């Protein structure tokens, strides 16, 4: 039994109870009326008797002295009372002496011949007594009650009955409706519960389907990514491997050896640039922010752009006087501009115009002023489907081998990492506009960071501790540094390095950042406390730690590093 049913079953016995109650009320009403009637009648008789007694007393003297006029006078005083039907004053011997009838008919001559009263008449008699002697009789007829009064009493009765009936009817009706509503509510609640269960099942299924979709999309993206990386890296590795094979041949002329060595260097540079762009997209590339005037940068790049774009494309610059400079990594910004420009070139196969504009872009959400750099082409434009995907890594519309699919990914990664954003506006056949929006920096927020680079010079031999968990990279670094005439000691972990450094004196420490156990940053921190004079140079492919919290002011070199970069960083560290 549900709660709803319990409630309604409780209500089922209600009509009987209500009917019983109404009957009780009705009976009580009738009882009260009867009692009232009786009391009223009784009171009426008493009242009339009193009237009659008064009349008897007042007419006593008149009867005593046989003065009908005086008696009639006393009787006439009652004519005011309209309920009095008949009054008669009789002498001791029963003969009438005074009186009247309301209807004007004459009185019967004696008490004995008096007609009996009607049904609605109260008749009372009072003896006329004087000094203990009965000297006559008064009779008085009065209406039992006015007809309209009786009628009104019936109305009251009928009203009561109707009221009781109405109460019973309305309560019964309301109760029936309530029961019906309850039933309906119950069935609706059940239907709702069923619908809810169904909905929940559907939602669960949908969530599952979405999860699967997401997973498959992720796998697709991953496949695309790894495929792209593999493809591009294989190209470079092919060159490196082939060149290295040739270099191992004996009796190779010096001129050829140099050419193949240069090919290896070039391929390695390309591969490094590939990983750098990849990391920039992943926003894991440590940026080296500088204060840059966008207009100056574009003017500087003009020559480069002209060469990149070729003869069939006209380059127009529309440079607005910007209110401020931006803070960005110069190399990354240049790379972004070149990436956009080369996409534009590829979109304008039959030539066209590349317009580079700068403008004020209002204020960002944090109130900082923004500047915009827009690069507009008159090329073939992009469809909405392409627009949706242009920032995906390795997404490309170019033929295989023509593009890496990383260009706009780099642009996107750079812009967001610099606190700005990229806007793309393009329609098929109407060209494309790609706009970089970058935040301004406060005029004096950053000191001029463009300190002149010290001249690289021949280094005096130094004692260097190389900390590197990767055996190959460690051996490579040792070879390089030894070649430069330095005295190199190697450690394969942070802990080992600390141990060695405590026993032996060094001029500089070169440490990898990411290592199992004690990392480079931790090592640098401990060494900084123990030997504040000992400089530490950090080397990393990428490090989430450095991106997030910085290197604590220590120089950082990025892998893959070149001989010159390494030598300069070490020399710079030792000069401080």
């Amino acid at each position, binding site marked *: 039994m549900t709660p709803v049913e319990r409630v309604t079953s409780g209500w089922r016995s209600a009509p009987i109870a209500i009917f019983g109650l109404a009957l009780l009320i009705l009976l009580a009403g009738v009882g009260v009326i009867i009692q009232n009637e009786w009391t009223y009648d009784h009171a009426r008789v008493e009242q009339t008797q009193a009237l009659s007694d008064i009349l008897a007393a007042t007419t006593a003297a*008149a009867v005593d002295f046989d003065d009908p006029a005086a008696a009639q006078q006393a009787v006439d005083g009652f004519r005011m009372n309209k309920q009095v039907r008949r009054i008669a004053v009789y002498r001791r011997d029963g003969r009438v002496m005074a009186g009247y009838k309301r209807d004007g008919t004459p009185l019967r001559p004696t008490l004995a011949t008096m007609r009996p009263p009607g049904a609605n008449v109260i008749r009372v008699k009072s003896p006329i007594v004087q000094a203990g002697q009965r000297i006559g009789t008064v009779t008085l007829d009065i209406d039992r009650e006015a007809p309209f009064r009786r009628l009104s009493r019936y109305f009251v009765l009928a009203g009561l009955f109707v009221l009781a009936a109405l109460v019973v009817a309305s309560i019964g009706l309301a109760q029936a409706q309530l029961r019906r509503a309850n039933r309906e509510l119950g069935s609706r609640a059940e239907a709702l519960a069923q619908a809810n269960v169904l909905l929940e099942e559907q939602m669960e299924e949908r969530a599952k389907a979405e999860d699967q979709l997401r997973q498959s999309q992720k796998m697709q993206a991953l496949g695309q990514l790894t495929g792209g990386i593999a493809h591009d890296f294989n190209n470079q590795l092919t060159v490196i491997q082939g060149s290295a094979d040739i270099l191992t041949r004996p009796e190779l002329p010096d001129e050829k050896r140099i050419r193949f060595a240069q090919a290896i260097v070039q391929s390695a540079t390309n591969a490094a640039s590939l990983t750098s762009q990849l990391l920039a997209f992943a926003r894991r590339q440590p940026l080296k922010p500088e204060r840059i005037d966008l207009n100056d940068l574009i003017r500087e790049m003009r020559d480069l752009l002209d060469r990149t774009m070729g003869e069939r494309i006209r380059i127009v610059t529309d440079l607005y006087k910007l209110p401020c400079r931006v803070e960005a990594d110069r190399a990354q910004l240049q790379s972004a501009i070149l990436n956009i420009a080369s996409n534009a070139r590829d979109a304008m196969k039959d030539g066209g115009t590349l317009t580079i504009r700068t403008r004020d872009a209002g204020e960002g959400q944090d109130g900082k002023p923004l500047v915009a750099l827009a690069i507009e082409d008159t090329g073939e434009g992009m469809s909405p489907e392409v627009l949706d995907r242009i920032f995906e890594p390795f997404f490309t519309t170019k033929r295989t081998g023509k593009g890496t699919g990383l260009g706009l990914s780099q642009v996107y990664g750079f812009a967001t990492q610099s606190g700005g954003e990229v806007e793309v506006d393009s329609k098929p056949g109407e060209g494309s506009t790609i706009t970089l929006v970058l935040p301004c920096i406060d005029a004096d927020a950053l000191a001029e960071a463009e300190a002149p680079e010290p001249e690289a010079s021949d280094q005096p031999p130094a004692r260097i501790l190389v900390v590197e968990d990767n055996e190959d990279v460690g051996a490579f670094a040792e070879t390089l540094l030894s070649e430069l005439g330095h005295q190199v000691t190697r450690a394969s972990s942070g802990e080992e390095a600390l141990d060695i450094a405590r026993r032996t004196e060094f001029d500089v420490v070169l440490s990898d950042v990411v290592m199992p156990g004690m990392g480079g940053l931790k090592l640098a921190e401990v060494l900084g406390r123990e030997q504040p004079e000992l400089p530490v140079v950090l080397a990393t492919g990428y490090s989430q730690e450095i991106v997030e919290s910085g290197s604590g002011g220590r120089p950082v070199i990025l892998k893959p590093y070149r001989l010159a970069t390494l030598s300069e960083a070490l020399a710079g560290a030792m000069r401080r």
Partner: protein
Amino acid sequence: MRAAAAAALLVAAQPAFAQPTDTAVKAAFLPRFAKYVTWPPAAMPRAGDAFNLCVIGGDPFGTMLDGAARSQSIDGRPITVRRMGTAASIDSCQIAFVDGSRSGQIIAAIGRKPVLTVTDARSGGPRGIIHFVVDGGRVRFFIDQSSASQRGIAISSRLLALALGVRQ
């Protein structure tokens, strides 16, 4: 009508008189006055004694009055009719019917004693507290309430209501 009324009035007391006269009516009235009058306590007869209705001077009633008096009683006391020539023993009387040629002297002799004096216009003498007249063929009476109250006598309003006139 008058004859019928008088006959009815006297039927119990005087069944012998078929034709009641004014005198008979007056005789019937006299003892009845006592029921509507209150005397000062000192003027009332002692407990158990009869109520005295005195006829002083002339007596026009004879046995008619005795009959009427017998049929009445005052608070259980019988009424005794006493006849006297002068007002000498007036102190024993509660009601005094004064008539005859010396009525003036008798009234004067009664003076301010608490006695309900009754006179008749027919004799032409002075007026007592109640004074019979015949008006329209009916025996009626005047009441001198002022004179009554001077003597400490109170007269019921019901009796006053029957009077032809009341002197306040």
